[in-house]
């Protein structure tokens, strides 16, 4: 018996009538575009009622000059079925405008989202409201840009260099 994804979508549609903005299915992958404000309720509902216990990844896309709102944050949820054919993956997207890059955090439901959100914050500058420890995770802490934004020059090594020189100085005076 395979898992009935359509039943999930129908139930979501009836429970969240104004939240789902768009549903796309392509090559057996289902993508739901939902309202940014509703991400927490939506994720909680999926987790508690349909066993989407695993957050696979959180990432973001910058559609600079190609689309407004500028950013999209993408969530991949996974449900482990008892049978292989009942393993289901679903993709959620929320649109984030340039003027207000705040999104509610999903760390209350999946603690695995902690580092994923930190990564998106680090590289795209999207703030996750309610995150317990929103610091940079890949770039140095005092780095002052978000390198995966499309308006960041990928060859611009100046911010990295500044952090490096600062770290060197601290190393010399023995404070690190």
């Amino acid at each position: 018996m395979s898992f009935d994804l359509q039943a999930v979508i129908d139930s979501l549609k009836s429970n969240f009538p104004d939240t789902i903005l768009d549903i796309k299915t392509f090559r057996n992958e289902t993508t739901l575009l939902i309202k940014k404000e509703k991400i927490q309720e939506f994720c909680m509902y999926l987790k508690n009622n349909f066993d989407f216990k695993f957050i696979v990844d959180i990432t973001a896309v910058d559609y600079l000059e190609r689309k407004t709102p500028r950013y999209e944050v993408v969530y991949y949820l996974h449900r482990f079925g008892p049978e292989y054919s009942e393993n289901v993956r679903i993709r959620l997207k929320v649109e984030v405008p340039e003027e207000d890059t705040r999104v509610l955090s999903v760390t209350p439901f999946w603690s695995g989202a902690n580092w994923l959100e930190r990564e998106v914050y680090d590289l795209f500058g999207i703030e996750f409201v309610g995150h317990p420890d929103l610091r940079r995770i890949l770039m140095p802490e005092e780095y002052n840009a978000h390198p995966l934004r499309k308006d960041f020059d990928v060859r611009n090594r100046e911010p990295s260099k500044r952090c490096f020189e600062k770290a060197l100085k601290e190393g010399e005076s023995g404070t690190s």
Partner: protein
Amino acid sequence: MGVNTNPVLGGDGFVTTKLSSFANWARKNSLWPMPFGTACCAIEMMGAFASRFDLSRFGAEVVRFSPRQADLMIVSGTITYKMASVCRKIYDQMPEPKWVIAMGSCTCGGGPFDSYAVVQGIDEFLPVDVYVGGCPPRPEALIDAVMKIQKKIEREGAPIV
């Protein structure tokens, strides 16, 4: 340097030499590497240390993970700016005299990563003695680099104290 045999000493030979050339001879045949492997090149470095290529044939098998006991730093792998300060710190902790091999295109000049995070050549912050090109270089190339370091020690040496 000359070899002497003396019947008074029971026929055993002794060698006369300068202290500096004796010290440099010892140094070049007992290089203790500090492996600074951060990426794919490090696998090739391990290959050079393992039995097939066997860097111990050149006296450089005592890999020290403590910089205080090493005198040859093999930087193999992509060095990001975040890692660079660590790399420099470890180099500073090594006692003199010390030598540096930059192994792979990444350490020589950034390699394929012309990006915001990667140092475009570790000679931005370290004095490099031998550069080894390649992505990754074969273990033979690393062995060649160690032999070049040996030649350099023989030729130039380093102060004894």
